């Protein structure tokens, strides 16, 4: 069917590609590691430039994405507005207490996570089934492999590959990612895994008898030496729980606090906290009656930002020099 030359060339190409696949599948420090590092640092530099050129367009895209779900948000906001109107009247006392608490949390937040701010410059195609992004901070900025990445809302992922000025982040929604997570308050631990969907994670409690309520918040359990996950970073809230207490496996669906689809500014934790911050970094949860009344107790950027306030406190220049 094909001329001889075409058959030979295609066979060679497919053979070479297959060799790459087999060598790459063996994992570890394959023969391509150095070639790949060189190529990806060059391409990463070009991507940095291209991302800057395209930033007006991608910025508009974010705006467009936001506009699409504004109808639902409008209803939601109207409802919560009525709620808040009544709350304002009895808020004076609450507000004084809240601002005192807020100030205290801010002080407690100092020196906790040492963060390098970075911007997302490239995103892996969805059809590759790998949820990864490239950020514009690398080993020059002190980023190392297996560091925790977060944004003002919560946990984003971990660093999987580092170049000089860019690095690759595997997001928590990647199906191959598992994070040790703790339920805020009850201290129950479990394993949180990505599902490949950007708005749902799966949480499996280790203790089948433990109670898990809808709306409960999860924080990272932490790993040895804070790699790959530092303790106490808010991850998400429980949407629903499958199974009843006592069943062999209890699985909950968790909505991540961080909006994975519109990531832009993230922070890489270059130094973990000296002690586990427990639940103090979680976004503010309203009092119990308010929680049931509000349509969706999702944390607003403003309040969770004020609580976390991590990236703003430590400018990039303060960060420890690269090794």
């Amino acid at each position, binding site marked *: 069917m094909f001329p001889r030359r075409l058959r030979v060339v295609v066979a060679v190409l497919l053979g070479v590609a297959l*060799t790459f696949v087999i060598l790459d599948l063996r994992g570890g420090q394959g023969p391509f590691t150095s070639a790949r590092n060189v190529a990806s640092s060059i391409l990463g530099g070009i991507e940095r430039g291209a991302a800057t050129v395209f930033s007006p367009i991608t910025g508009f895209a974010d705006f467009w994405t936001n506009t699409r779900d504004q109808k639902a948000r409008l209803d939601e906001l109207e409802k919560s507005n009525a709620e808040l109107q009544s709350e304002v009247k009895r808020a004076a006392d609450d507000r004084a207490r809240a601002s005192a608490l807020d100030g205290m949390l801010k002080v407690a937040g100092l020196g906790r996570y040492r963060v390098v701010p970075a911007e997302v410059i490239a995103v892996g195609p969805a059809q590759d089934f790998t949820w990864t992004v490239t950020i514009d901070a690398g080993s020059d900025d002190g980023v190392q492999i297996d560091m925790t990445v977060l944004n003002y809302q919560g946990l984003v992922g971990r660093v999987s590959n580092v170049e000089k000025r860019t690095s690759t982040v595997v997001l928590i929604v990647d199906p191959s990612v598992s994070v040790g997570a703790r339920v805020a308050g009850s201290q129950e631990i479990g394993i949180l895994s990505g599902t490949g969907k950007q708005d749902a994670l799966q949480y499996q409690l280790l203790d089948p008898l433990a109670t898990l309520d809808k709306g409960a918040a999860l924080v990272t359990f932490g790993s040895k030496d804070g790699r790959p996950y530092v303790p106490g970073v808010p991850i998400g809230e429980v949407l629903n729980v499958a199974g009843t207490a006592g069943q062999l496996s209890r699985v909950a669906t968790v909505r991540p606090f961080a909006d994975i689809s519109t990531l832009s500014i993230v922070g890489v934790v270059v130094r973990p906290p000296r002690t586990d911050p427990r639940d103090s970094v979680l976004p503010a949860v309203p009092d119990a009656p308010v929680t049931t009344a509000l349509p969706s107790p999702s944390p607003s950027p403003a309040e969770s930002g004020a609580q976390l306030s991590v990236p703003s406190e430590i400018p990039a220049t303060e960060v420890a020099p690269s090794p």
Partner: protein
Amino acid sequence: MNIKARQAMIIASAIFIAVILELTLLSRLGLPGATPDLVVVTIVALALAYGPLPGAIAGFSAGILLGLAPPFDGILGLEAIIFTIVGLVTGAVVDPRDRSVPVIMGMVGLSTGGVVLLNALVLAVLSGDRVVWENIPGLALTSALYGLILAPLVVPGIGRIVRSLTPEVAVV
């Protein structure tokens, strides 16, 4: 410059631009479903303009480049295999005398949708836990749809460049 060098330059720069555009612009637009697969559309356009052999070479190099560009985290060479097949099949199947719009659009839709399915199949065999099967129909359909939107912009453009710079080896 001789004809082969000119042809190689055109193929290399088209693929390079497509990969950078796909990773830094198209994937960040936040469109629902798959990322618009500009790389596959470009391979199809090159294969249509040059025939099966340069098409296969273009597919191979695009796959390797996409495998080296961050944030790629999969298996190097996998996309090279799939894209080589896409370039070969496109160049071989489409008759140079029949370049009607439906044929070209059909080829682009089949390639962009088919790449998603092929990718999922091969990935499922090699590292099973990564593929989320319930997302596949949506990804394949949106990928084909975006491919059809990109095709009228990319295919005639590359065809014109090929015919004006390398008229000796252009298929049409």
